[in-house]
């Protein structure tokens, strides 16, 4: 193979059909309240971890819905499990349990 001094850029596009949706389905089955998220961002605003480091639980939830789980393990471990997000969620999602289920699913589908 020849060296060109550049490589083919990886696509940033979410390719929904190619993604693995098992993790999402597992979380939905075990914490059904996850489905009613409206991406308001209240959880991220109050997040103890997110105020100090690059961690966005709202965005992570969206990426799980799209089956984008590549960086998930590293990301989800930033959560301190303090539960403040549960207090602010306007739709009453059990966000703390959502995170626990995500962690469980990561182990399961590793």
């Amino acid at each position, binding site marked *: *193979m*020849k060296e*060109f*001094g*550049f*490589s*083919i*850029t990886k*696509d940033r596009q979410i390719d929904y059909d190619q993604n693995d949706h098992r993790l999402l389905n597992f979380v939905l089955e075990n914490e059904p309240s996850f489905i009613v998220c409206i991406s308001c961002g209240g959880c991220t605003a109050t997040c103890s971890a997110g105020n100090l480091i690059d961690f966005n639980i709202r965005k992570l939830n969206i990426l799980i819905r799209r089956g984008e789980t590549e960086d998930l393990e590293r990301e989800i471990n930033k959560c301190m499990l303090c539960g403040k997000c549960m207090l602010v969620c306007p739709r009453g999602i059990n966000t703390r349990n959502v995170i626990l289920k995500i962690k469980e699913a990561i182990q399961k589908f590793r």
Partner: protein
Amino acid sequence: MKTEGKKRVWEDYQKEIAEDHYYFQRSCIRQNFFPGSETAFLKILTGELGRDIMDDPHHTTCTGIGYHADIVPFDTTMTVVARHFALMTENGYENMIISCVTSFGIYTEILETWKHFPEVLARARRYLKKATGREFNIPKNVTHASDIIYKFKDQIAAKAKYRLINQQTGEPLKVVEHIGCHYSKMFPSWGVGGAEFPYVLQGMVESWGGEVIDYPERRHCCGFGFRQYIVRANRGYSVANSKKKFESMKPYKPDFVVCNCPGCTMFMDKWQYTISEMEGKTYDEYGFGIPVLTYEEMAGLVLGYDPWELGLQMHQVQSEPLLDKMGIPYDPAEKYKTASGKTFRLPAEPTSLKVCV
């Protein structure tokens, strides 16, 4: 796919294309990468169609590449374009044909700017007068060279020696048409068929017996993008765009790609080599890649011009498999001969992309 729906869109985007007496504006890069194309264009217009066209050695670049790479400011570009209009005017012409899609984009952008901002036109006239003493008329008709071939497609079809039909199967050749972004994406009404479903190349392909493939990434840019390929570190996303297109068109098994833009033709052709070297991938069944032609080369083949005279050997993806399908005879011994009969130094062979030597 409902063709009648597309026809309705095409009817909405018909443009005026002058009949005769043209001033020709060449492209900078086409003469290097597809050296037979503009020659074939002039030959078709004068020889086959008996049209009057002026090929003027006094014109220069339109500055498009520099303009889009943020090196040349708009006022400079506009003054250079004004000079070309002056040359046209001085030679007694009113209709301009532009060979390059980047140039076509530059011209349309400037003409639209002048239409909406007369003070900018006045500035262009002042600059040109100051710099060169010249004055100019705005052309009555501005077309891209592919518009002209589109206009005369049926006359070319009537003279065709070969058709875009697979001689072995009798089936129409499957053709990917790729339109340069600056042909109609900036100003849809300037393009035959508009921006979403352009008809300029499809019209030629259909008239000459072929069948156009409408594949999902048809509208996607080839990735040329000026700054993207000029800076080597950026070429990765230039090539990724072409790759996205190849991946999407591959299942349709296209026989060739035809483009109306110099940058697209070059990159759709050359990136196939790059991708094959980097990833070992080719996008046809047999590892030769998909030939990429200019519309003049396609017209030339249909009219029976010699493939080596058309310069097909200068492409990265070689066209012999396509010539065989169309039943066009060629002499392998002549492939790398110069006009004076000397042989070029043979090109190096790629690692995985197959070529016919």
